[in-house]
């Protein structure tokens, strides 16, 4: 999960490695996705990553579709 100057940079980087780009996030999207992914990390009641809960948190932040489905 790397930082690039631009989407074009991502596409060139992927092409050079014969990979398809995954999700390209603006900085604001990266921030919201991070809140969804890592929200419960310090919760003392945490008992393992709940994939249904993670999916719901992604949806709440507007991240839907197969890429964001952890199940």
């Amino acid at each position: 999960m790397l930082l690039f100057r631009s989407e074009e940079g991502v596409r060139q980087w992927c092409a050079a490695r014969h990979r398809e780009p995954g999700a390209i996030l603006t900085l604001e999207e990266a921030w919201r996705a991070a809140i969804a992914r890592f929200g419960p990390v310090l919760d003392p009641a945490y008992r393992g990553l709940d994939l249904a809960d993670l999916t719901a948190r992604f949806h709440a932040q507007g991240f839907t579709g197969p890429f964001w489905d952890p199940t």
Partner: protein
Amino acid sequence: MDTPPAATWEVRHLIFTTIAERGTAPDAAAIAATLAISPETARDALTWLSDHAEIVIDPSGDVVMAHPFSNVETPFKVTIGDRSWWANCAWDTFGILAVLDADGTIHASYAEDGAPARITIHAGVPAGTGVVHLLLPAREWTKDYVDT
């Protein structure tokens, strides 16, 4: 998920709260001393947590990754004032500030040319230049911590 060994979730919580507070994770001896458990119990918990992708440990049993935190120096760093934390990747830098619920600065580099990059987050609003690329979809994240 199989049943974890004794004190596993307490060990996990101690690892994450310690690295969040200090920037470094405790080793098995420190975990054992803090939680008043045996070193063997601490090591068993660390192994179980690593086997279940909750953390990553090295061959000696020390914590390497406790996502989004890294317990080793990396090219991805977060600073808040004079305090700092290492991250495992560019996205994890955002994750650290999200976990800490704080304003701070992300220090990374652009993948195109390695030039230094600095992004600030203030009141939940990032400022800077760039995009973050997540190569693998969510279902792959715990299967390949290196290539995501």
